[in-house]
């Protein structure tokens, strides 16, 4: 099937209220973690992630400050597209470890952009999208 757009109803579970935590080491807070879940009905290979961008307060977090954690493994963002043997289970948590020095106690707007490829369907590109 070739199609251009698909939307599933599990958006509310992608970022849950307890998704954001401080990343604290013995030296103190070094960053934060963000737990991400799938908006899909089945698990996907990690390589199905087409785009992953994180913004805090409107400023994009550089990829080199992020390590993507799946179970006991860690991947730099640049290697995620190569991780085709790693399965992200439909109920599993992808943990973004962000080494940005931490967030101060103010409220922050954290935006996650996550585009996933539907690995068993053929999707056409939408002009202008």
């Amino acid at each position: 099937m070739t199609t251009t757009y698909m939307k599933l109803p599990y958006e509310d579970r992608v970022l849950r209220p307890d998704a954001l935590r401080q990343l604290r080491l013995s030296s103190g807070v070094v960053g934060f973690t963000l737990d991400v879940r799938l908006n899909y009905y089945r698990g996907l290979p990690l390589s199905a992630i087409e785009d992953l961008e994180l913004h805090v307060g409107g400023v994009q977090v550089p990829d080199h400050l992020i390590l993507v954690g799946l179970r006991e493994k860690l991947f730099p963002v640049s290697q995620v597209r190569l991780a085709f043997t790693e399965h992200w289970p439909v109920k599993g948590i992808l943990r973004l470890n962000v080494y940005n020095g931490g967030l101060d106690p103010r409220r922050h707007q954290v935006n996650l952009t996550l585009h996933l490829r539907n690995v068993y369907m053929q999707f056409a590109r939408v002009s202008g999208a």
Partner: protein
Amino acid sequence: MSSSAEIELAVSLYSFTQRFVERDDYGVEDMFRSLQQLGVRRFEIVGAQAFDQYPRPRAGEVDRVLAAAEAYGCVPFSYGGYIDSGRISGHTPTDDDVMLDLTADLVTARDLGCHYLRAGNIPEHLLEAAAQLAEAYDINVGIEVHAPSRPSDEDIQRLLARYEDIGSPRLGFIPDFGCFIERPTRPAIRRLLAMGARQDLLDYVIANRHTGVSEQEMWDDVRARGGGNAERAAILEFFGFLSFGPADLDGFRTLQPWSHYFHSKVLPRQRGPDGSANSRPQAAHRHRGRWLRGRPDVRVRRTRLPPRRRGGAGGASSAARAPDPFGVHPGITAS
């Protein structure tokens, strides 16, 4: 004409997707409990959904499913697999890639003791090799015919011709009755409305679905009329996996000799205290509303086969001697 007693019913665990995805505390044990309450024993399990590791689950995961199934008197009959041809961005899958995915699913199907693998799309030139592999693993491989595909479609008929040329009973179809939808279902409309779609725009899309416009042209038109993402999703579905139109029954007849089993979505019929069918719309509506969160996706098999022993060639067991495990459940009916 076959009597209803010859139709065996099973349930795909995919039916419980919404509960499974949304609730951390909901697992296969809960699904099997539901099957037991429905009086259905046979089930299909979708590997990429049910297992933490895919395409090859850990042995412990398979063991856990089998143990839970046994505890509730349930037996797997089919394994839902995939050919994940888009696993690597920019990489066109090779024949080796496809055969690896197929083999992995056959291994898991055998580990589960299934008779069938509902496989992903296998290229025509690999079907003969697939049949040989299926024979080696003693598993029947079925390719699903799902909307927007129709039995008479050129590619489906070409697949049928290849099946006939190869002549292996290991190959077959799994027609999904969804490809016979003649108009969008009320649950689909309600879901789209809940997503924020406008009724008038849904009506417009439905009325003009078969006027010759493309999916893109329809979207451009609806967007100009004020449509947003919900209407866009509706267009996708009505041109895609919820496509509708005159039922292709003649085409269906051509697939029947090569069909392993069938998929059908069913909704329960509300019954009154005396057991009679309750036609009160409000009661039916409420009842159906609950089922939308986990409605059974029933797989109807054509033939009655003995349960297999796990990893073995199958054979008689106490389960095989159980009385009529596949009787049509009185509380469900095809919709």
